[in-house]
């Protein structure tokens, strides 16, 4: 008698397409996935626990290492939380520098996603094109902060360094260049029949699913939810810029792809306006005490990172270290829908679905 048996396949933690040390235990029947179980924690460093013994300024470098593709937004969320607790008014110039840095970083982050996603799908070249542009952004941020990946740029009350001479002009030049390159991206990939066939209708979920699973960022906006904290709960100076919240109706990997590429354009709009409005002179640091002590109490702030809503909760008992610190790490939440998406799918779609969620393992594992 012919007997078939389920195969247990271990994808990761050393698989080339799990974007780090993510492990997925899948049961497959033939080529159809019957069960998928994500195993995470290989990169857990206990950032939140470590933070309890660190002063607020000392925590900032740790946040760099959470979502290491987009460190600036992580930097911002912790500073923003402490500033909210202490009621610090950040100088204008510092806010503009922060917005520029965050939006540049958002573009870089989406570029990394775009490149690696295409790499997952099997096209090698887009990765290199994306990294060419990312390299320019990284160089810009390097001039600003002195680091290429873990920027450690923002401080409670402002930013660490002022923009070097000519930096703003370089950013201004970058915007039209990037727009030009984006056209090339669309020509190379977006219209490609093979690519469309691989992502359209793949990993589809509804608006209700997205809300139930607490998805955020492009993962939520791809289902038609128009929700972007930069617009809906403006923090920093985002209310001064004119940009659209991108959303698509499809709810599949294709919609997520479109969302992210369109978000690059929106970020470029913000950068363009920020460069125009950039104050020529001014402080980059508010008056803050030498040793920062958040007042007794608690605060939760959330901002829009490239991956979704990143939140920071601080409970303080008035000391120079937080009593408890908690990050809402968007990758971690977005990942939770994966088992649901994978069941019943063909094994060939596994990578396309996983990649479209856009996880960063440093953030998932904390």
């Amino acid at each position, binding site marked *: 008698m012919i007997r078939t048996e389920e*195969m247990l*396949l271990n994808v990761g933690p050393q*698989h*080339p*397409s799990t974007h780090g040390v993510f492990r997925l235990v899948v049961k497959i029947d033939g*080529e159809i996935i019957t069960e998928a179980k994500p195993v995470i924690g290989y990169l857990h460093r206990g950032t939140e626990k470590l933070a309890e013994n660190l002063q607020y300024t000392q925590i900032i470098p740790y946040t760099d290492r959470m979502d290491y593709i987009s460190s600036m937004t992580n930097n911002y969320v912790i500073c923003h939380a402490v500033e909210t607790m202490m009621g610090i008014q950040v100088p204008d110039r510092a806010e503009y520098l922060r917005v520029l840095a965050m939006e540049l970083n958002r573009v870089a982050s989406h570029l990394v996603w775009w490149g690696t996603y*295409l*790499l*997952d*799908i*099997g*096209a*090698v*070249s887009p990765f*290199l*094109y994306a990294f*060419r542009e990312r390299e320019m952004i990284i160089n810009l941020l390097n001039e600003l902060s002195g680091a290429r990946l873990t920027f450690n740029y923002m401080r409670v009350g402002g930013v660490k360094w002022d923009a070097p001479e000519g930096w703003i002009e370089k950013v201004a030049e970058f915007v039209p260049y990037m727009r030009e390159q984006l056209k090339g991206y669309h020509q*190379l*990939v977006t219209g*490609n029949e*093979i*690519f469309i*066939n*691989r992502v359209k209708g793949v990993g589809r979920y509804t608006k209700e699913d997205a809300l139930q699973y607490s998805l955020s960022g492009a993962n939520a906006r791809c289902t038609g939810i128009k929700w972007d904290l930069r617009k809906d709960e403006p923090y920093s100076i985002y209310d001064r810029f004119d940009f659209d919240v991108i959303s698509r109706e499809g709810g599949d990997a294709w919609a997520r792809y479109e969302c992210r590429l369109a978000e690059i354009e929106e970020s470029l709009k913000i950068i363009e306006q920020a460069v125009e409005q950039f104050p020529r002179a001014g402080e980059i640091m508010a008056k803050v005490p030498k040793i920062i002590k958040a007042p007794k109490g608690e605060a939760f702030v959330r901002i829009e990172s490239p991956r979704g809503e990143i939140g920071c909760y601080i409970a303080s008992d008035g000391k120079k270290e937080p009593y408890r610190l908690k990050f809402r790490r968007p990758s971690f939440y977005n990942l939770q829908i994966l088992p649901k998406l994978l069941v019943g799918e*063909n*094994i*060939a*779609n*596994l*990578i*396309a679905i996983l990649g479209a969620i856009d996880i960063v393992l440093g953030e998932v594992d904390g």
Partner: protein
Amino acid sequence: MIQDLLYSSPSLANFGIFFLLATVFLFVILGFVTYAILAERKVMGFMQLRHGPNQVGGRWGLLQTVADVLKLLLKEDTIPKLADRPLFILAPAIAFAPAFMVVATIPFTDSLQFADIGVGLLYYIAVSGLTTIGIVTGSWASNNKYSLLGGMRAAAQMISYEIPLVMSVLGIILLSGSLNLNEIVEAQKDGWFIILQPIAFIVFLIASVAELNRAPFDLPEAESELVAGFHVEYSGFRWAFFMLAEYVYFFAMASLITVLFLGGWLPLPFLGFIPGAVWFALKFSVVVFLLIWFRVTFPRVRADQLMEFGWKVLLPVALANIFLTALLKELLNAF
């Protein structure tokens, strides 16, 4: 010369000559493989804003592949504990021997051909199908789930694409009236088959890329899905054998496309003073470049879509092409 030798009585001298010729030919192919890999890396580098190899062997990296092969020779040869040892060792040989066997039938010029077989085309297609057995054997013997998936994909892909490949060639056979590759080239004196058989050319090109397991049809070794597919467990020189087979097929298939569709060694009009070998090399290089270009540009097709495309699109188109060719031929003959 080779023909005469084939029909002469067997002797030790003849055997010696054959052996020598085969060795020379082997080195020609290995030389090609060496520089095809370099060319591929250089072209890919050029298209991907990189330099490609530029350290070993001067600024063009001329000795890069040699260095790579030496490294592979020195690498430890690992065989998994639970692998099927005899099959594991045998598989690379099964995969790579047919690759050399098919090259013998390719006519490079009107005089340079190693085996002028009456049914050369049939021979090519039949023998090249054997390689898949090597791949499936290797993937099964490795006792690895990823390689098993890769091997199964390779088998399914081979069956789905061999058929349109053969079907597309039938149009050419109808026009040339022969399965002999020499005669097929001669039949293109008045017009290359790429012009007379454009549909067949497109079907053949797509199917041949799938046959070669190259991007966008590189599913059996899809790096991002199956880690390395059928050769996950292979290392060192056994792995090199698989790669070697792949590149020799690359060479053979590019040659075959040149012979079938681009008129082999035949020159363009008014340029007959340039020798046939140069023409062959030129057309061949164009095909190689095209195949590399494919690899750089396209994402990978999904396994089930690949099957669908093979059976639902390529096969009917190829069949329609045969029908159309036969019809047109009869009509033209009638008037």
